[in-house]
């Protein structure tokens, strides 16, 4: 009996261990439930918010259609803009596959963008055209469809929630998710059918589907493109040149290109140079040599001269250096095309120069190739002094010049006023033909160089 008595020790230890692990497990279970509920609450809130925002869009659109006062309309449209932006933002935070809501998100972005465009036309003093009214009417139809689908989802979810015990909760959650998905999928199909919005804004179909105009016409073969690539970097012999595999739809990208990986002779394989050459026109779209630069031997000024000389050598005439950045021992220089005395910011080329030996390690002509063409530059209707009057009196101006800036699909000719206001650097663009203030950029200088916002 005495000896038998020792048996209780392991038994007790094991049973305490069991109790401890049970308690631990229960705690984990409770914790898991807590997290699940807080996440589900978050998603429910998002869902109800999206519904509310879409409702408001729908209502404000009907009001804007009816209203005859321009001021009232501007207010309505800015509300529509903010409501649809919020709806889009919240919809994109819900746990739904992008394939199920992509078009709906796009619809909401475009409603916001279109409202912004209409606000601009209103502020210029133009009335809504009958076409724009019709578009608004169509948008209202789409948003009420959207709202209908959301209401249906809401009803179904509310019904299923009514007679549920906590034990069934996770199953019901799943069911709700699938209700929501089906409803949104219905909507997604509807949205695919809605007509294109024609206006001038960053999210308009016109702007999204823009084709490059600066490529030229000649089609080049892979062999020719390879020659263009090796000539461009100026290496006499290449160790290896490989081409990245293109898919069957490559012709649908903005600038269909061949993409190369070039290993120059006498260098290691991991120090390849990457390059893209357009299939049409055989232009180098971009080039990059991502080697490390450990020592800085030349100044940014010297590097800028190297970059300018490089562009000249490649036959890019009249390119004028603008702002620059410095990262990891590499200077990045932005060059804009200059037509007589007008700087054209739409035609932009970036050149990266390694600050150790002045080698060109990067080149990006994407923007240039998209936009560069012969332009009919209008004569400015305003004189410089007249344009100056449009700018705030106490704006401290450093320099003035004529420039063409990209503005959606338009390219207005502007007077560019660089200067300071209350200690910060800005650039103000005044349209040289209409006198409108087209754009204000804030310049931020930090240890890396100049950034515009």
């Amino acid at each position, binding site marked *: 009996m005495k000896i038998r008595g*020792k048996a209780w020790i392991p038994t007790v230890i094991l049973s305490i261990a069991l109790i401890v692990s049970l308690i631990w497990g229960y705690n984990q279970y409770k914790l898991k439930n807590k997290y699940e509920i807080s996440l589900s609450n978050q998603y429910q809130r998002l869902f109800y918010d999206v519904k509310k925002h879409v409702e408001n869009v729908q209502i404000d659109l009907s009001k804007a259609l009816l209203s005859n006062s321009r001021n009232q309309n501007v207010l309505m449209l800015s509300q529509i803009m903010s409501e649809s932006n919020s709806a889009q933002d919240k919809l*994109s*935070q819900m746990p739904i596959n992008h394939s199920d809501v992509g078009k709906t998100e796009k619809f909401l972005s475009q409603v916001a963008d279109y409202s912004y465009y209409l606000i601009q036309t209103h502020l210029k003093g133009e009335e809504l055209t009958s076409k724009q009214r019709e578009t608004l009417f169509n948008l209202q139809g789409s948003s009420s469809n959207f709202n209908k689908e959301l209401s249906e989802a809401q009803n179904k979810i509310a019904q299923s929630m009514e007679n549920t015990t906590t034990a069934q909760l996770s199953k019901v959650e799943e069911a709700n998710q699938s209700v929501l998905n089906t409803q949104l999928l219905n909507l997604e199909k509807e949205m695919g059918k809605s007509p294109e919005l024609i206006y001038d804004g960053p999210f308009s179909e016109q702007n999204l589907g823009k084709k490059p105009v600066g490529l030229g016409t000649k089609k080049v073969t892979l062999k020719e493109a390879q020659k263009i690539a090796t000539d461009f970097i100026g290496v006499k012999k290449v160790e290896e040149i490989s081409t990245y595999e293109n898919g069957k739809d490559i012709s649908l*990208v903005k600038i269909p290109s061949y993409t190369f990986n070039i290993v120059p002779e006498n260098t290691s394989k991991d120090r390849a140079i990457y390059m893209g050459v357009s299939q049409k026109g055989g232009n180098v779209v971009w080039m990059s040599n991502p080697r490390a630069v450990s020592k800085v031997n030349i100044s940014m000024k010297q590097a800028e001269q190297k970059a300018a000389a490089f562009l000249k050598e490649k036959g890019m005439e009249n390119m004028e250096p603008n702002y620059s950045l410095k*990262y990891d021992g590499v200077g990045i220089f932005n060059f804009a095309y200059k037509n007589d005395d007008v700087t054209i910011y739409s035609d932009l080329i970036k050149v990266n120069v390694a600050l150790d030996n002045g080698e060109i390690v990067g080149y990006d002509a994407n923007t240039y190739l998209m936009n560069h063409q012969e332009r009919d530059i209008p004569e400015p209707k305003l004189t410089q002094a007249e344009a100056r009057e449009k700018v705030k009196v106490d704006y401290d101006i450093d320099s003035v010049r004529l420039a063409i800036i990209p503005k959606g699909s338009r390219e207005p000719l502007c007077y560019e006023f660089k200067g300071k206001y209350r*200690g910060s650097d800005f650039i103000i663009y005044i349209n040289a033909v209409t006198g409108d203030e087209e754009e204000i950029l*804030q310049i931020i200088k930090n*240890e890396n160089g100049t950034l515009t916002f």
Partner: protein
Amino acid sequence: MNKIFSFTENIIREEDIFMRKKILIIGTFLLIFLTIFTFIEPGLKDASKYDYYQGIRILYWGTTGEDVKSVQWRLLQWKYYNGKVDGIYGTGTYRAVRKFQRKNGLKEDGVVGPQTATAIGISLGTTTNTAYATSTAGVSRSGDEYLLARVIHGEARGEPYLGKVAVGAVILNRVKSPSFPNTIAGVIYQPLAFTAVADGQINLTPNNDSIKAARDALNGWDPTYGCLYYWNPATATSKWIWSRKVMLKIGKHWFGL
């Protein structure tokens, strides 16, 4: 059971009773300790993860500035660093910081975040230098840069350099597209969008290549010519992704619209 205990019975001597008591006491303490431990909830107390969100300037490979200088200066004095005090966070500084972190029991990632900064004895400012005008204070892109670098690292650290830049470019193309959220963080944290975000790999410390790739992408380099999707044919589970328009292949990823 009996067999085992009759076996133990043989080797138990008188003095073993003391031993048994000792074991019992130690065992009880152990159990009490475990019990207490189980009641402590592993809540979201690990605040260090959230420093990224607070706009605090974090020093890592490639950052420059006065604060980098003060880090180098301290590490030089303490003999962790033997390079120039030039304000550029390069290889030497990176190694010195790692050495410092290892010696001081900090997470060894070569990044000067709030904890390492406190240990070194400097205070990190907000993301811009206070010397600049107030209307631009706090405006910078270094937060975006580091976030983008973390996704690139999580999603494509095994890819060639071009593949890393391409992943960064796809994220930036999505920001510009109406069908996706309008901010970099919005695109990255969109539910079900990136596996590296869902499984937490995004919280790994990005290496130098990923940071460089993020910077190249932010500077406008787009090797995908405007693509919005990418997928790895070996691991892609969604059938839908194959209905995308296929553009080009870089490394293991196909890129498409």
